[in-house]
């Protein structure tokens, strides 16, 4: 196996596909690892941020995933999946685990919670329509939210996203369709609410 540690070989490695680079990483090739970091690091940070809404946490989780890539690259089997599919699964599953862990603390007994929610007009004026969509996305069921994130924010094709979620293509398309229907309903409801407030 050609080692990519020297600078010239590292430049050549830019032309190698991800799967070949991972085999180099398994042989402790830091150059190949660096190419993968530059090629995918920010993309996965954005994906984790989309799922968690917390940049510091997203960075920590993606770093964990890259640690796993470095320490256990030999576990990757290019015959079973593309590198990006494998790595997407690692990042997405880790984000879902983290979200499940972060359940809100219960309020103390007798605490009278003040309703701090803005009305529809305030939301539209202060935060813009995007916030309505952001809230709608975050209110989707977990699998629908992941599907929307992979397809519309991460730019995966339906086939790639279905592989990441371990679904048949038709099942994935059906999931995405249900998510879109919910988002449309939320946006429509929000619009009607605003019109009602404005009279």
């Amino acid at each position, binding site marked *: 196996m050609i080692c990519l540690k020297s600078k010239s070989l590292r430049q050549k490695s830019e032309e190698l596909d991800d799967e070949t680079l991972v085999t180099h990483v398994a042989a402790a090739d830091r150059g190949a690892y660096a190419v993968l970091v530059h090629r995918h690091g920010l993309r996965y940070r954005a994906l984790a941020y989309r799922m968690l809404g917390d940049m510091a946490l997203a960075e920590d989780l*993606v770093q964990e995933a*890259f640690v796993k890539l*470095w320490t256990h690259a030999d576990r990757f089997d290019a015959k079973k999946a593309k590198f990006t599919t494998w790595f997407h699964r690692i990042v997405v599953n880790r984000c879902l685990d983290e979200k499940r862990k972060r359940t809100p603390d219960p309020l103390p007994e007798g605490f009278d919670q003040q309703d701090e929610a803005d009305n529809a007009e305030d939301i539209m004026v202060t935060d813009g329509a995007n916030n309505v969509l952001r809230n709608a996305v975050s209110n989707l069921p977990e699998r629908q939210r992941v599907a929307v994130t992979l397809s*519309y924010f991460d730019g995966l094709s339906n086939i790639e996203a279905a592989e990441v979620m371990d679904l048949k293509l038709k099942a994935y398309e059906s999931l995405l369709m249900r998510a879109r229907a919910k988002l*449309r309903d939320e*946006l429509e409801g929000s619009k009607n609410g605003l019109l009602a407030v404005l009279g």
Partner: protein
Amino acid sequence: MKPMTIEEFELARVAHGVDMADWPSDIAERARQFLTTEEGAAFAAAELSLDAQLADMAAPKDADAGADAFLDRLLDVPAQHTQVIEGGDAGFLSTLTGLYRDFRNLFSPIGALSQGLAYALVLVVGVFVGLQQPYDEESSLDLSSTLFSSSADFYVGDQ
């Protein structure tokens, strides 16, 4: 031609993308007819609005903030973490763990056959070694002789 429903139009958009030029011709033709209806036009407008908002949301404003520092963190990983080389110079514990991991191989056809052969070999060797030993009457011991003081004990029940 059967008129297209909202669900069919939506599924076609999800399956074939937003550009109807990429759709199969028969589906695209039905979709065009659907869009001429009032219901179709209203639905398409809602879909376009949703697509536009999703696209707008897809590009976070602070996507590049701290990007260099983050990439540096990732590039430091090899210096901070040792690679786990399976099957390499592993310690005793790792070797034991590896054996346990391979436990399921025992139940593969080759594993079962190997086990059968190993048992048969041990049996044959054991019998062979046993046959090589001469019968030694001195070393044999009748344990039952110590259990009863006399043969009369056998007949207690008859009295």
